[in-house]
């Protein structure tokens, strides 16, 4: 991610342990970008769209969103819908990283504009491996600046 402005990774993941493991494994892949963790949807929405909910705060940011679908206070799908429905955030790549492997849920996420859908492997080896590869993928991927 060699840009004038550094890309921030917004990580919306309710489980702090998972968040820590994801962070560790992304770092191991050599990604040193800032990671902004959120453990619930409300805080994440406040960060992405600001207090007024307009999304103006995200204007000019370069964001990559890592999204878990199972959040305590709202469905991750709602967040995805809002991100892809807002003019300021819709170009930010969204990586859905979740335990759900339900095909309808996967279809729904892609329909709503998710860029990547990854099912968390159940065993840790697979999990760590998947995150590391995701980190490698991040390191070569272009992220546009939000309008």
């Amino acid at each position, binding site marked *: 991610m060699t840009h004038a402005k550094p890309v921030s990774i917004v990580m919306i993941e309710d*489980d702090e342990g998972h968040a820590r493991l994801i962070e560790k494994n992304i770092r191991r892949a050599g990604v040193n970008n800032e990671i902004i963790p959120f453990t619930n949807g*409300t805080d994440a929405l406040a960060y992405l769209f600001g207090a007024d909910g307009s999304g103006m705060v995200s204007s000019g940011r370069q964001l990559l969103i890592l999204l878990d679908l199972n959040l305590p206070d*709202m469905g991750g799908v709602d967040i995805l819908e809002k991100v892809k429905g807002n003019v300021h955030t819709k170009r930010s790549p969204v990586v859905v990283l979740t335990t759900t492997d339900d095909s309808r849920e996967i279809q729904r996420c892609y329909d709503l504009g998710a860029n990547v859908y990854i099912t968390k492997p159940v065993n840790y080896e697979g*999990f760590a491996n998947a995150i590391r590869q995701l980190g490698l993928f991040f390191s070569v991927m272009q992220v546009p600046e939000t309008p």
Partner: protein
Amino acid sequence: MPISQSLFRRTNLLLMAAGLAVLVAIVGATLWLTLATERNFADVVAVREVRSASADLMSLVQDAETGQRGFLLTRDPAYLDPYTNAVARFEARFKRLTVAVADLPDMDPFVDRLEVSLNAKMAELARTVAAAQSGDFAGAVAMVGEGRGKSLMDEARAGFSSILERSEATLVAAIAAQEATAARLRWVTIIGAIIILALAGAAAWTIIGYTGEIMTARRELESLNAGLEERVAERTDAVVKANEEIQRFAYIVTHDLRAPLVNIMGFTSELESTFKPIEAYVDAEGEKADDLKAEAVLALKTDAPEALDFIRSSTRKMDGLINAILKISREGARALKPERLMLEPQLEAAAAAVHHQAAETGGGITIDAQVDKMVTDRFSLDQIVGNLLDNAIKYRAPDRPLQIVARTLAPRSGWVAIEIEDNGRGIAAGDHERIFELFRRSGTQNTPGEGIGLAHVRSLVRNLGGDITVRSEFGVGTTFTVLLPADLRTVKRSNQT
């Protein structure tokens, strides 16, 4: 009283038989009365014949007397013709009278007496005519002059008139009898007609009544049928819903149990990896060791405790989740004790437990018990109402005094609805189903909670044979409606029996 099919058939057969019997009676009576009429008519005819025969005989005898008188007066044998004719026809005429009289009762003595007088008269006439024919006109006239012929003739006249009187009496009797018969016939016809009409009316009434009952029964059947379809649809919906919930529950449980498991495995392997720098430091010697020390210290002091912390917290979380699942599944297996509950004191007790919390905000709890009593499990009801009131307090709107209304009402017969209405922060429309799911919460996470309460309440309500629904407007307030059968004993529970 409902008419059974066999009763209906018996009644109608009976009515038909009665109608037939009446008809037969009418026909019989008519025939009998017609016969009586014939008899009366025969009497009338006989009387007429007697009168005619009497008149003829009388005129014959008078003819004979006229002939005798003419002959005696003129001594011309030509005047004797009426006499000769009369004598010649006397036998036949008299015979005709006796035949005619035979049809009338008690006439013989009169006829016998008349016969004697007539024979005597005819004999007297014969004697005078014989005397005159032999030339003794004077002797014959003298014989007439004796008056015997006249008195015989008077006798005969009296005989005729008594026969006529007698036959007149018979005629009057026959006419009276005929009038009576006609009257009887009229009455039999009228009464018979009335009876038949009454029977037909009774039959019609029974048929109309029976048909009405059949129609009512059919309508009932139709409505039952429609109700059945509705109930089947309702049940099918409930089953589909329950099935979806089970799938959702299974999914949530596996996901939520798997998440800490991934943590445990992950941090175990992280912990393992902290051994490497420590091992390297321990194995190294001299200056090299100093270089490795910092890394080993970092691993030992920071990474290892962090990993252990996460392992511990994940284990605790898993334990908590398993306990919550256990609690809910135990709830389904707990034996329910249906008892008669007064709802107002029940709600008051539940409200009293949280009253001070509501009062702190300057608000209060209002109780509006429109339905007073129900039969259900006390423990379950306490838990349901308690949890809903706790939620109302927990998720109040911070900017206004909390107002809670606990209400009971009967939405339809056999059911009781308990509503807990608040003016709290409300629930976003997309989360109305989610809040009932295990480990799921809605809105800002500014209060502690596991996401168990409403899942627990729903399983309790389902266990009582009811359902729980929510109406809410975000930022305005929330109403939970618990719909329960008014009598738990009427609910057939498949897991008992």
